[in-house]
């Protein structure tokens, strides 16, 4: 066993894990309705492959990854597509996202599965399989795994870190998975190993899960691999990818570098398991293990189909009467689900029923006294109180100077804050503000570029027109000038004005009609008239000055 390293800070909240860790993983019954959001991973939104009314089979691809940084989604069961529309998402905003709504037909009929022997496939093919099977990081970050299996070009990978730490309180889905399906995990790790060719493979598991450690040890031995299973000290957030890499290898991955550049890569145990199922059995990711716990009669782990609305899994957990919220993810980094209709997605590792006694409403936020407890707890050695000070004052430049974007939002600072300041909330606010500003800045720059291009063009056109006019007047001065040339502009002008007046009148009539409830399309004659009115307008493009005149008249 290799020597372990430490990371700064961290906290030790009560784990609350015992309740849900006792019983084996059970399979959730088929729900009456499935709402599968298309966008379940980091990267671009997959393109929907089905339309309302189509019949889909279990495992059929319903959303295809368009770009490399994207991941496919699949039908969790066979049935009929009811709609492809915006449905409320499992997202703290409570906003909707494009989802595929499927009514199960009860047959649960698989598509034809295509199993492979991972050892015989070229690496490129394996990555494609992973992408098309929708394998993403199931620890909660949902980063597409096929992208992460691309080794850095510059250096060989030193350590492949497999994350079985599961440091969030309440959560036991990885624990149960390791206890029950250790061999599948180990075989999945072997797939990643073959893709990345690291010098060593380290499986980190927090030492409060002795059964999982034992199961993983024997599974690794059983399949004859040389993976090292390392118990790591229980301390939140030891299961953060960067913290686990630090503990196991001593490497610190800065915020602006990707871990392979530093010679390490990290996968969750559940991801490894789904990777193995995807390659060796051809099964895409259509379900996941979810811990259902908290203020419930029956806590445990269930294998739940992706897209199952929260409402449908309530009977499994039997929330107590005073339950007032449902939290997706752990109590440190999770968020409150906006609605009972929000579906289980690839990121849903845990659903906690909350009650006022379990998660009491926050004590009033007091001012920061700069006691530094947050800095001592911060695993990234930031100065959260400084970040808070500037985030609160909306001084975003300063927050970036204090490395806001190195914050992993683990919540350790808020956990220890004596002033009860929702620090993470301030940091998320500042981050999303900065991102939005960057977007605004980019679009403002683009707008400026278009504006300047337009101005340049107008100046050029004006110059050209002036030139034309000068030439025309020269011609006019010459005795050879002809009369029609003089008359033409006046005629078109008059025609155009008449056309505009007619159009205004029609629009008025139409608006009145619309107000009266007539929302039908304009009839064919009207369309013709519209087309006819356009003739005069065509000239307006050539003569912007004239156009401006008419506008002034309009006012």
């Amino acid at each position, binding site marked *: 066993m290799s020597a372990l390293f430490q990371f700064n800070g961290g906290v030790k909240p009560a784990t609350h894990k015992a309740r849900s860790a006792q019983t084996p993983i059970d399979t959730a019954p088929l729900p009456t309705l499935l709402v599968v959001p298309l966008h379940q991973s980091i990267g671009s939104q997959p393109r929907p492959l089905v339309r309302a009314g189509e019949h889909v089979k279990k495992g059929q691809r319903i959303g295809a990854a368009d770009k490399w940084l994207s991941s496919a989604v699949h039908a969790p069961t066979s049935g009929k597509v009811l709609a492809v529309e915006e449905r409320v998402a499992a997202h703290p905003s409570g906003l909707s996202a494009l989802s595929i709504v499927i009514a199960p037909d009860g047959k649960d009929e698989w598509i034809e599965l295509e199993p492979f022997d991972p050892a015989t496939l070229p690496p490129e093919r394996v990555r494609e399989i992973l992408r098309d099977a929708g394998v993403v990081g199931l620890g909660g970050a949902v980063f597409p795994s096929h992208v992460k299996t691309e080794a850095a070009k510059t250096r060989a990978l030193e350590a492949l870190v497999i994350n079985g730490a599961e440091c969030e309180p309440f959560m036991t889905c990885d624990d149960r998975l390791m206890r029950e399906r250790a061999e599948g995990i180990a075989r999945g790790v072997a797939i990643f190993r073959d893709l990345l060719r690291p010098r060593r493979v380290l499986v980190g598991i927090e030492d409060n899960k002795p059964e999982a450690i034992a199961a993983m040890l024997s599974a690794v031995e059983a399949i004859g691999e040389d993976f090292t299973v390392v118990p790591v000290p229980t301390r939140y957030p030891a299961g953060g990818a960067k913290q686990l890499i630090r503990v196991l290898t001593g490497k610190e991955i800065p*915020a602006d570098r990707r871990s392979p550049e530093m010679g390490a890569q990290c996968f969750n145990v559940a991801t490894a398991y789904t990777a193995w199922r995807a390659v060796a059995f051809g099964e895409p990711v259509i379900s996941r293990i979810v811990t259902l716990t908290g203020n419930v009669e029956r806590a445990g782990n269930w294998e739940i189909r992706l897209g199952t609305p929260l409402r449908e899994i309530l009977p499994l957990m039997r929330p107590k009467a005073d339950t007032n919220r449902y939290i997706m993810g752990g109590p440190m980094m*999770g968020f409150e689900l906006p609605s009972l209709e929000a579906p289980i997605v690839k990121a849903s590792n845990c659903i*906690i029923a909350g009650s006022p006694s379990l998660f009491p409403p926050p004590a009033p936020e007091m001012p920061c006294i700069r006691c530094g407890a947050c800095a001592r707890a911060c695993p990234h050695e930031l100065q959260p109180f400084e970040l808070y000070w500037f985030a609160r004052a909306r001084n975003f430049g300063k927050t970036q100077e204090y490395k806001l974007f190195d914050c992993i939002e683990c919540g350790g600072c*808020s956990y220890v804050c004596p002033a009860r300041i929702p620090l993470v909330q301030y940091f998320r606010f500042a981050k999303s503000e900065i991102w939005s500003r960057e977007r605004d800045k980019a679009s403002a720059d683009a707008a400026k570029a278009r504006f300047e291009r337009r101005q340049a063009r107008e100046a050029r056109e004006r110059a050209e027109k002036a030139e034309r006019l000068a030439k025309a007047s020269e011609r006019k001065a010459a005795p050879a000038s002809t009369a029609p040339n003089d008359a033409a502009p006046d005629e078109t002008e008059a025609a155009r004005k008449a056309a505009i007046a007619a159009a205004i009148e029609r629009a008025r009539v139409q608006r009145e009609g619309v107000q009266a409830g007539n929302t039908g399309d304009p009839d064919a004659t009207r369309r013709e008239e519209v087309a006819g009115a356009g003739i005069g307008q065509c000239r307006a493009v050539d003569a912007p000055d004239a156009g401006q005149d008419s506008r002034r008249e309009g006012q």
Partner: protein
Amino acid sequence: MDFITPPYLTQDISIRRIMWRVLAALLPGIAVCLWLLGPVILAQLAIATLTALAAEGLMLRLRGRPLAPFLGDGSAVVTAWLITLAFPPLAPWWLTVVGVAFAIVVAKHLYGGLGQNPFNPAMIAFAVCIVSFPALMSQWPALDAGAGFGERLALILGQAPRLDALTGATPLDALKTALRLGEGQVGVAAATADRAVFGHIAGRGWEWVAAGHLVGGLWLMWRGTIGWRVPIAFLGGMTMVSGALWLWQPDGFANPLFHLFSGGTMLGAFFIATDPVTGCTTPRGQLIFGFSAGALACLIRIFGGYPDGVAFAVLLLNLCVPIIDLYTQPPIFGMKK
């Protein structure tokens, strides 16, 4: 249903508890004062506490803030107690009131109240009063005068003439005056000769108060309420400067032990300089802050125009805090070389 934000779990700790712990840590020092001076110190504490709460309440009301959480957080009481312990114990009541009110109103609430003041309110009070009323601020009770509680209370309430018999100079002041008047003729040994309570250290028993604060401060450190860096560096700075001067001219300067146990050294090291709001927050910054404050306090005390330098030293370092913090930011995760 109210909106709560992650993390949904939090540690059981609050500002109020921190403040109460600081108050508890002041008790040993107060107990020694009680032994030296009798219950009159309690009257002084009561005046200061009531003034602080009244000023805090008034400012909260004027600023339209809720009273309960802020009056209850204990920060105003901490300021009041620190002012009482830093001021001469028999200072007239109005001096205490002026000091406390100025601290709470100007030094604290004009900057937005708890957590936002750049200067230590208690030390602002001390500086304002020593600049405005230098004579009153230098009169410390003569412990051998044997005055009763009634007499002392009358003194505080301004009912009795401020007799020289009842009040004298602090050991620091006495030393300084003796050295100045003596033009180098009178040595330190002579100037501190008649003080034999604590083995010739700081004279007349005031070192016992300092020892009380030391005990309270060490308890705070042990409980983790204050870090070790600031107090240790403060005492280190004080020892270094006074020690260097003492080694250079043993007869011209008092020994480090005298300085550590006289004036506001212990109170300053453990309770004033450790104020997280006005102090440095980075580890290296805290060492710089503590050491500079200690050294500066010693320099001002020995060479400056005021009997004690702790208040000015702390204020001057408060000034430097933003700059020190800026240049001592610790390297973050992944950025270490």
